[in-house]
């Protein structure tokens, strides 16, 4: 139990606990002390001097954000002297750079401006300095305008403490001081991961969204949480709405997995729609897709699905996006598996789940470790995984581990990965030779640690038969790298192994088995028997798809292919292209008029991310439920409605056939 304390602030008795600052106690007790550099997500800076207060018995003023609250303290947070000082601080800030609010992108949503109003600043008594500072527009998503910067350091702290990269810092000094990136390079050429956290925390117009300022003024804004559909971490975000449209995306303090950290994809890219929306259903007539009404399109869909039900005309194949909510995935699965009797129902990128499933079949079901184990890891081995690209928030967590705690990362991947830049060692085996590397590592581990007795003779022999020399020959990696990778893994107390799409998409479950073995060999197994290994997939709801029972689809000889892609930017591989060409007919339910449309015989409109509500289950099995944030354009029906309508029509066709 924290020790309770009582202090007096501006004559009011305030309660708090030991360890809180004066500012925290004041806030908890509903008192306002003005701040600028302070931010709830960040460590204390104590640099802006707005929160100076008088503490009885202390000669000097203290900053409330940094001063510990003490029992019995008597604090004055508001009086004429403090007011004058705060006014002076504000006037100096206004005089230092260019704060001509009517010309600023953030006027109306600026904390400096708010403080100025609160403190009745009508003009400044000092000469304007107005140094010539060029705004940096090289970042694709936001602008840094040094002219509006008050050097509060919020961006600097967020970049290091939340984004983990530490791109930003203070350069030069005195009146020349500016926020710099790396060695003073333009932001667009820097190590910035474009997470936008600095933009979220900047109190002024010094950092602002390129897209948002024109329609995100404070008035009439609404905020609704939603989920990033891209990967299976389950990152939640705050969608800022104006007149029912998405103005911008902000970090959401209460996000259970990611806190306020977002990736450039969930914050910015999600707002860029590469193709126009599909607004009306279409049916192919005489080789041309023509717009039809919903009834006709749904009839055509039911007819196509019914035709193949007998099985005489070949089978139906269903492929669906893992971005969709649980409810939609379940309805889709029900329609195809139960009503159409179709056995080939899968999701796009189904191999990512299938490989893991096969590994469970081959080596027994393994429980894998959770986020906490990853947070606590003192060494990370990445195999076929580039989190900085596919799971940027995880990538940022890893960057933080590297920069803050010096945790070594070893990356094994046949492609050049972004995460390799964080890695102390990266091995780039030839495609298809990953297994040789893993055998090599296992062999090294039993050699280096004398662990031969822990495995049976045949297994040990198999591993030993892959000495670094052979691995080097087969996989094209350096001998020394294999030795060192094994040594780094062996030396760690709590290493974790993370694998991703590049491993699972090989379709080789043996690789996963070897990773589990590696963790077990060194006893890296948790309290509930979980191995310190974790696989990740793309698509927010892969875990839900797995639970519902999407189990692989054979496209060969498909009479009808029913694609529910929603807003998934499906990777149109040569294989998929061919399969769609070979299929008897293609039904496409898609939000966008993308490259899949050309293969479709029926096109049904679908929802995009902000229009969907429902439940998502992340990689660790954590469920989150969100409501839709925006309304779909007129004429677009919810996916669920479409699935139900098709189901009803199918039943009708069936009954008719019976009669």
């Amino acid at each position, binding site marked *: 139990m924290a020790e309770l304390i009582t202090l007096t602030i501006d004559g009011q008795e305030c309660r708090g606990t030991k360890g809180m600052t004066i500012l925290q106690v004041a806030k908890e007790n509903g008192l306002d002390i003005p701040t600028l550099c302070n931010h709830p997500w960040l460590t204390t800076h104590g640099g802006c001097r707005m929160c100076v207060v008088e503490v009885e018995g202390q000669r000097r003023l203290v900053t409330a954000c940094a001063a510990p609250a003490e029992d019995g303290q008597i604090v004055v947070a508001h009086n004429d002297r403090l007011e004058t000082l705060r006014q002076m601080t504000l006037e100096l800030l206004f005089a230092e750079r260019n704060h001509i609010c009517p010309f600023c992108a953030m006027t109306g949503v600026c904390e400096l401006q708010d403080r100025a109003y609160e403190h009745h600043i009508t003009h400044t008594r000092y000469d304007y300095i107005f140094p010539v500072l060029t705004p940096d527009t090289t970042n694709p998503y936001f602008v840094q305008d040094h002219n509006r910067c008050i050097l509060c350091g919020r961006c600097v702290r967020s970049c290091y403490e939340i984004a983990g990269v*530490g791109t930003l*810092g*203070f*350069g030069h000094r005195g009146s020349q001081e500016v926020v710099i990136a*790396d060695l*003073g390079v333009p932001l667009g050429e820097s*190590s910035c991961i474009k997470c936008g956290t600095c933009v979220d925390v900047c109190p002024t117009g010094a950092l602002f969204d390129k897209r948002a300022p024109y329609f995100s003024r404070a008035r009439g804004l609404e905020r609704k949480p939603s989920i990033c559909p891209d990967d299976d971490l389950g990152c939640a975000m705050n969608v800022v709405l104006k007149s029912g449209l998405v103005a911008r995306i902000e970090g959401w303090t209460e996000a259970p997995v990611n806190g306020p950290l977002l990736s450039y994809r969930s914050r910015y890219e999600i707002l860029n729609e590469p193709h126009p929306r599909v607004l009306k259903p279409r049916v192919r007539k005489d080789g041309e897709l023509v717009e039809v009404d919903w009834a006709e399109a749904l009839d055509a869909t039911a007819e196509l699905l019914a035709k193949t039900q007998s099985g005489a005309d070949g089978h139906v194949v269903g492929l669906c996006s893992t971005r969709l909510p649980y409810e939609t995935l379940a309805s889709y699965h029900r329609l195809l598996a139960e009503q159409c009797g179709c056995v080939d129902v899968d999701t796009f990128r189904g191999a990512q789940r299938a490989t893991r499933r096969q590994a469970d079949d081959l080596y027994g079901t393994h429980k894998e470790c959770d986020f906490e184990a990853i947070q606590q890891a003192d060494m990370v081995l990445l195999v076929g995984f580039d989190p900085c690209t596919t799971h940027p928030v995880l990538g940022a967590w890893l960057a933080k581990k590297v920069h803050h705690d010096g945790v070594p990362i070893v990356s094994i991947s046949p492609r050049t990965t972004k995460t390799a830049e964080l890695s102390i060692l990266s091995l780039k085996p030839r495609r298809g030779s990953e297994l040789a590397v893993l055998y090599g590592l296992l062999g090294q581990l039993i050699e280096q640690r004398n662990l031969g007795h822990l495995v049976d003779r045949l297994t040990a022999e198999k591993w030993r038969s892959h000495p670094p020399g052979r691995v080097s020959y087969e996989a094209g990696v350096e001998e020394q790298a294999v030795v060192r990778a094994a040594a780094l893994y062996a030396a760690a107390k709590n290493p974790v192994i993370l694998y991703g799409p590049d491993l699972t998409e090989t379709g080789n479950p043996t690789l996963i088995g070897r990773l589990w073995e590696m963790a077990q060999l060194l006893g890296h197994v948790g309290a509930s028997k979980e191995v310190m290994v974790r696989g990740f997939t793309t698509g927010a709801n892969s875990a839900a798809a797995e639970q519902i029972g999407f189990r692989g689809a054979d496209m060969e000889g498909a009479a009808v292919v029913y694609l529910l892609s929603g807003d998934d930017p499906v990777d149109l591989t040569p294989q998929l292209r061919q399969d769609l060409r070979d299929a008897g007919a293609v039904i496409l339910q898609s939000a966008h008029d993308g490259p899949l449309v050309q293969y479709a015989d029926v096109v049904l409109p679908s929802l995009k991310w902000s229009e969907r509500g429902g439940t998502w289950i992340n990689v660790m099995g954590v469920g989150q439920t969100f409501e839709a944030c925006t309304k779909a354009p007129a004429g677009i029906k919810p996916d669920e409605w479409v699935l139900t309508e098709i189901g009803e029509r199918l039943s009708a066709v069936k009954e008719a056939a019976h009669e």
Partner: protein
Amino acid sequence: MPVLSDATRASIREAAGQYPPGRQKSAVMPALYLAQDDAGHLNPEVLREVAELLRLAPVHVAAVATFYTMFEKAPHGKHIIDVCTCVSCQLLGGYDILAHLERRLGIKPGETTPDGRFTLREQECLGSCASAPVLQVGYRFHEELTTVKVDALIDELLQEGADG
């Protein structure tokens, strides 16, 4: 490709080792001095290398290097002559010393002689008022200056160059 010599790299690692683990940030100043002595000035490649050696984000190193004026960020002459013209030195003839050097070297403050031997600069307080007027060449102070002493110093520095 490292820009710094192996010896400098080793010294920087050693400097970092003098602080507790995780406190490599404390070694930035000594590391920058070592790097500057080796490379002449701290260009981006040098700063990047120091950051790598200390395992710090580059910006942490850049922040320190740009904060302090005694870290050279641009190419300069072999000898940098910093002449103090702050109050005490000024009263005792700091500007005469500066003017004399301007004539002798044929350059203005902030410039470098065409042969690349000397860079002349005017400095705020060098912190040696008691022995004013002073100037600084590299890490050495030359005190209680007269124009005669200054000429002798320049001769000496030129001689050094000729010998080397």
